[in-house]
């Protein structure tokens, strides 16, 4: 296995057995996968396709029936390697009686991070995920989105080389989703490897370098976004400031070159762009709002539903 490979699986298979040892479910069937370091890899598939099973096998939560898996060059059972891995599970499972500070401190101690360094990282991460306003509240009082944010923070507490995120944007509002994607892209810039599992296809398409699609435990296809999605036979042009006459001339020119005009129309922004624009116009800064204790989904949804420009915090 070469040094640039972050994750490698060889015929990785998992069969869940019943109480008497009889085969019940073939969750993963001979998965062969390579993930290079410094890339963002998306693992896609419908529910029950084997995405979470793959992640659990890579993290040593369950054991393979057949085959092998290597993470950062070592076996999945190697404890020392886990100091270089960050993991966000699909469900936010933390001690609910702790607050954000205590939660990150607990996980930081498991990595044997010295106290001073731990405090610095906790402050930075809480700021980065936008939970400054709620850091002293117990997680019992957190919304789903807030729990996701603290989950991302605990996945990054050890400054890992490999980050495994299972449905990272699940439960997040559009702003939270955007920020999470920005965090993931920033991690890639730092040379870290990200394995991202999701069934929100647009999120995966926006940020992943390579993807793999699983279905019924089998790998269906794998490749880069460009390789899999680009259509070589179609050209898209976005042109500004063209009059109707000029448009007709262009259309005629294309027909003259034996091209087929599929459609000519004004492109639309995405709903996400509109939402972000409205929310960011209403708020002077992202962090000021956090400090006054409002959640973005609350502001966004109230603004969208009422169309009210009044400052909720006043």
């Amino acid at each position, binding site marked *: 296995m070469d040094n640039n490979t972050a994750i490698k699986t060889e015929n990785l298979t998992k069969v*869940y057995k019943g109480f008497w040892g009889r085969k019940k479910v073939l969750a993963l069937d001979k998965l062969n996968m390579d993930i290079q370091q410094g890339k963002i890899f998306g693992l896609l598939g419908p529910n029950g396709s084997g995405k979470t099973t793959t992640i*659990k096998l890579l*993290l*040593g*939560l*369950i*054991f393979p029936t057949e085959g092998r898996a290597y993470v950062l060059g070592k076996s999945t059972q190697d*404890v*020392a*390697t*886990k*100091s270089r*891995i960050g*993991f966000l*599970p699909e*469900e936010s*499972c*933390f*001690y609910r*009686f*702790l607050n954000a500070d205590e939660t990150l401190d*607990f*996980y930081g*101690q*498991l*990595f*044997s991070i010295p106290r001073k360094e731990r405090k610095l990282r906790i402050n930075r991460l809480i700021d980065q995920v936008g939970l400054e306003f709620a850091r002293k509240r117990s997680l019992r009082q957190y919304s789903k989105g807030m729990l996701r944010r603290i989950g991302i923070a*605990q996945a990054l507490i050890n400054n890992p080389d490999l980050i495994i995120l299972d449905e990272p944007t699940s439960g997040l509002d559009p702003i939270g989703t955007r920020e999470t994607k920005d965090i993931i892209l920033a991690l890639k810039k730092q040379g870290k490897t990200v394995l991202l599992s999701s069934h929100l296809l647009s999120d995966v398409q926006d940020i992943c370098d390579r993807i793999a699609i699983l279905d019924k435990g089998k790998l269906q296809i794998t490749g880069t976004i460009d390789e899999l999605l680009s259509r070589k036979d179609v050209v898209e042009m976005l042109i500004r400031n063209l009059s109707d006459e000029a448009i007709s001339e262009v259309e005629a020119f294309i027909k003259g070159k034996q091209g087929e005009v599929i459609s000519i129309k004004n492109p639309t922004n995405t709903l996400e762009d509109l939402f972000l624009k409205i929310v960011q116009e209403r708020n002077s800064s992202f962090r000021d709002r956090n400090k006054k204790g409002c959640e973005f989904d609350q502001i966004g949804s109230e603004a969208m539903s009422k169309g009210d420009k009044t400052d909720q915090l006043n």
Partner: protein
Amino acid sequence: MQQILVIAKQTFREAIRNKILLIFVILSLIAICCSVFMPVVGDGRERIKIVESMCLRSITFFGILAAILISASSIPTDIEDKLLWTITTKPISRTSLIFGKITGFVYIVGVLLLIMGSVSYALIRFAASGQDVQNGKELLAREKFEPLDLQVTGKSVKNIGNVYWIEGGGNGTSKWDFEGLAYKERLDELEIEVKLLVESKKRYTKKIPINIKIINPYTGKTQVESIEVFNNKPASLKLSAETLAGSEKLTLVISPENPGDFIGISSDSLTVFLGKKSFEYNFLKGLTIISAQFILMIVIATLGSTFLSLPVNILFCLFVFFCGNIIDFMRDLSTVINVLGAHEHDHGISAVVNKPNTIAFFLDYVLKKPLLVLSYVLPNFKNFDVGPYFVDGINIPHKKVFASFGYALLYVSLCLPLSFVIFKRREFA
């Protein structure tokens, strides 16, 4: 090591924040404090006995309950809530996780024991306050000595079962030798306690006089005292420790005073107490022995939690604790169920029914052997029972403390590695 302490601290913090420890403290203190209000018939020593007995039983009951409920539920709950997903994916081995959890459980039960023990001690002191010291109603922790040797001589001695019957009037005697009677204070008391079976040809007599000859083998000095004894009731003779005069050995010769009076003796009919140890130190030793059984139960519950679900594990632990308190009964029951070779003079169910039958056969093979096996495999929690020491006012010997801990350690050394092996292969699906 650091990670073990992190997990331990987290486990303890969870018990505090989730108010589990607080609930156990409140309930146990209510039970302990109720001991002071129990009705008592008799003198002040009876009140002290009641309070001591109830306090120790409450400490044991709530401590074991806390040990079982907290230890049996922690890991299954963490697995159910998927908390272990975020912990085991950190650089901590599963062995360290188990160690950390057990350490946390021991902290929790230790704090509970400290609180219960402190309040119990205060209540016992309160119950003993104002009692008449001279009448022996203070807190006792007497050093107990058992006979090294018993010799029964005389023409009129008859042996029925394990009991020797001696007739009075010089026809038979029982001689008891004691060693190791070292005393530190001249004012220490030497107490001879007898508990004999009594019969008399004078049918109306409920008590008979007996002679106790105290022989100092070192000085050769002999002293004869007479006391009256009732059938199977303890009677004591108190002497000054100066009777020993520097010797650590003592010989006692006991016989009924009058012909026609009989005493039935066995090896445990006579006990010697010398001096009084500190009650506080004795109480501390008692709590130490009780804590050993808590640690044992914690390890057993943790073993169960590595492969059983929460309700099944709790039932398993309660089963182990219950059976561990009736080990002697289980062994006796397996002896009673005896099919083979039964005849009218044997014990056994078939002796009652006069012939072997299907039920007895079934009981013999299905019940007897498993009971016998269980009685040897399961830990005997009677080994940690310190109640009789306090009720009888006896000092707990150090070897008892070490023996209790050694016994607990034996089971811990078996259960702990098994926990590690099972948990290492446990999947968190």
